[in-house]
């Protein structure tokens, strides 16, 4: 690979009225890994997308080997040797692994036909790079739709690497991977570094950044606010650059409330397409965290309790068996779900805040609807949650991430739920709103609401929940609380090892 330098200078970009990037800058060089770090909303993904030609920039320059370039579309970036790995974004589900990897640069026969045999054999060669980290489902002729998320991510990575790029951008590429796959990827990255590839590693995960990166650029609110050499820096320094002020990483003290004895929720041998037999019970007013590596059934569990999945087994709510076959039925039992993807699952973007808040509740307002009462109720809840908005009639798309999340929570709080299910609710929410949110959850528990809280952020689980259920492969692998509830135990049980395994540094065999 040839030596290159890639500079982004003062890139700006806005979407509608919102500024995503004010001054995005970075320098990437061959043979090193540059981490691009920042909280959600900092603009790091936008910057990555501009560099790879997916989005236009408003102003600023990209200089590639001392020459200014404009990548009008991803193809132009590919041709120049700049390729990105996203999260499953560029795979066509109805096509095979081989077809996806070689799309747009398929090997051809003499007659201009796609050389299918060669694509399959070349794909096998690429798959060898990750050998031992995936199951037998991952083959060249497998239809991508049938693969689990981690294998899809591997295909994404192989797809990028098949182009032999000079610059490789990994945008949250490790999110769906398990630790063995991440280890494998990092070894590959080290090899690619030696082959002179320039790598940009966009990530949220501090430990990974400190494992693999040489330098780090920090973005905050669309500005590049600092650059550090990893070897000379610390987690605390980077976090403070991200947040803008010193913040302790210590555990926040939370008042541990007394829990009543009444059992609110009991699951007996719950099975779905993903769950393999889940058993646990939760007391009224308890806040139980759900953890584990992403994609192990956590979201599926929450959706099943909300009536959105077919299931076998028993669900008992306050002693009564129930079989919700539609979210409507679950709602009638005073269950509420805050889904994981705000924009596509939780909000009606072009409708007003008022309508979003009352969507599950309109039958309470009579025929014809008493809009005055609805408005005053909505005002009430928006004050309680401290929502910052223009007016109740403004479209919900005008709100920031944190406030939009408040709308979703507000719509369920208006119903006074007995069981509140939360699917990674603080993703993409700013630090201030997160703190308000945690306080709200504590108050709800105190007044008797039972809460199940799934988070992909291990630290958040430990800080917030006195009890965490760790899931893997559709089972509950561990029920941690009290002294057992440590980050080390969380991680090791997520990988299937026991509570003591972490001390011995064993790596768990991937279960067939």
């Amino acid at each position, binding site marked *: 690979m040839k030596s290159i330098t890639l500079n982004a200078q003062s890139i700006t970009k806005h979407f*509608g009225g919102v500024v995503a990037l004010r001054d995005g800058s970075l320098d990437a060089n061959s043979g090193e890994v540059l981490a691009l770090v920042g909280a959600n909303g900092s603009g790091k993904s936008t910057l990555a997308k501009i560099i790879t030609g997916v989005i236009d920039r408003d102003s600023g320059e990209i200089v590639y080997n001392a020459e200014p370039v404009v990548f009008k579309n991803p193809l132009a970036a590919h041709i120049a040797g700049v390729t990105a790995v*996203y999260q499953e974004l560029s795979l066509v589900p109805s096509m095979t692994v081989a077809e996806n990897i070689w799309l747009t640069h398929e090997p051809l026969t003499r007659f201009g036909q796609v050389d299918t045999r060669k694509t399959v054999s070349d794909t096998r060669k690429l798959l060898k790079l990750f050998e031992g980290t995936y199951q037998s489902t991952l083959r060249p002729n497998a239809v991508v739709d049938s693969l689990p998320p981690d294998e899809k991510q591997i295909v994404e990575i192989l797809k990028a690497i098949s182009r032999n790029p000079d610059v490789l951008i990994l945008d949250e590429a490790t999110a769906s991977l398990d630790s063995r796959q991440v280890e494998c990827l990092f070894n590959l990255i080290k090899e690619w570094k030696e082959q002179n590839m320039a790598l940009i590693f966009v990530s949220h995960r501090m430990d990974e950044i400190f494992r693999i990166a040489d330098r780090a650029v920090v973005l905050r609110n669309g500005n590049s606010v600092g650059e550090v050499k990893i070897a000379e820096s610390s987690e605390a320094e980077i976090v403070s650059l991200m947040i803008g002020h010193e913040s302790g990483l210590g555990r926040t003290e939370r008042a541990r409330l007394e829990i009543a004895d009444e059992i609110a929720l009991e699951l007996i041998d719950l099975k779905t397409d993903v769950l393999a037999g889940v058993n646990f019970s939760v007391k009224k007013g308890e806040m139980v965290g759900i953890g584990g590596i992403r994609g192990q059934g956590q979201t599926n569990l929450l959706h099943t309790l909300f009536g959105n999945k077919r299931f076998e087994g028993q669900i008992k709510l306050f002693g009564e068996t129930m079989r919700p076959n539609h979210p*409507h039925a679950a709602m009638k039992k005073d269950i509420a779900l805050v889904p994981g993807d705000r924009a*596509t*699952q939780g909000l009606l973007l072009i*409708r007003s805040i008022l309508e979003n808040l009352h969507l599950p509740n309109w039958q309470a307002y009579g025929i014809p609807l008493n809009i005055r009462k609805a408005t005053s109720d909505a005002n009430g809840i928006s004050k309680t949650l401290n929502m910052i908005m223009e007016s109740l009639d403004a479209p919900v*798309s005008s709100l920031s991430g944190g406030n939009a999340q408040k709308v979703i929570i507000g719509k369920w709080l208006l119903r006074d739920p007995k069981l509140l299910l939360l699917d990674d609710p603080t993703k993409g929410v700013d630090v201030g709103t997160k703190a308000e949110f945690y306080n709200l959850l504590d108050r709800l528990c105190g007044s008797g609401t039972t809460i199940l809280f799934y988070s992909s952020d291990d630290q958040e689980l430990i800080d917030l929940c006195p009890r965490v259920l760790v899931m893997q492969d559709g089972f509950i692998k561990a029920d941690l609380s009290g002294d057992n509830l440590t980050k080390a135990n969380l991680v090791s049980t997520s990988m299937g090892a026991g509570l003591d395994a972490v001390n011995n540094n064993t790596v768990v065999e991937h279960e067939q």
Partner: protein
Amino acid sequence: MSENIQSSEKKKFTISPQVTALLLALLLFLASGFLPNGFNSVDNAINQAFNILRLSAFLALIAAGQTLVIISGGEGIDLSAGAIVTIAVLFTYKFINGDNAMVLPVLFFVVACGAAIGLFNGLGIAYLKIPPFVMTLGMAGVVTGALLVVTRGLYDGKVAPIMTNVIARDLVWGIPGMLFLWIIFGVFMTILLERTRYGKQLFAIGVNRLTARLSGVRVDRMIVATYSIAGALAAFSGFILVGWLQNAGLLVGNQYLFPSIAAVAVGGTLLSGGKGSYFGTMAGAIVIQLITSLLTTMQLPEAIQQIVYGSILIVLLIVYGREKGIRL
């Protein structure tokens, strides 16, 4: 992955589409006054205005069901509306047969037929996942076929006097009875859309069916209900139409089909669903009717009307209908 919920939005027009439609209607009406057959006097102008309004009313009535299915999203459209109007006209004409006493029973019967046809549409769309365009178009063929079987090309009947009096003639202060009917109907439709749980849920499924489901809305039932209501409304329009036409015909409904879609679009209802109003459809119907009348007065062949409707829809789509998203 997304950092902001906002996506790339193009510049928005600040005047609401309904107001634009009304202004356009006014302009067209005044313009028509300057034509050779235009207004001779104020009385004449008022007469012409009432006439236009009356004709628009029928179009808007037929467009009511269309408004609902388009708001419901999922590329919603009802191409069987024309056929339902026709069958309603024929049944009304035949079964009332000039008898005032039959008016109410026949009304219920005809509306029930329309609802049944709409029910089929809704079931096919919601449960068999047949795209609305294809399903309703196919259903239109079935209804037309059924018509032929029943009528064998012939039809007879008579209008009831009470219908003629209310619908075709003036009722009070020289204002046509039809207009009162229309206003009451408009109020009913607006209440349905803005002040009922059904209406709120309709907008919800038009915007995002997954969110609606996860907020407890039974999407499939809503779809079935909406197409059934649309069928019932189309049948109701056919019933009223007989009062005006004093007659029936085998192709009566079809000529209203495309204009009804154009009226909904002109009135500001998003063709992708989730946003709109019946008031807009009313304004849009007036605009479309004015254009039709203009073209007829200019003695242009009917073919020109078709081309004009198609072009209007294309222009509207270009102005209002661009999908958000990444540049693709």
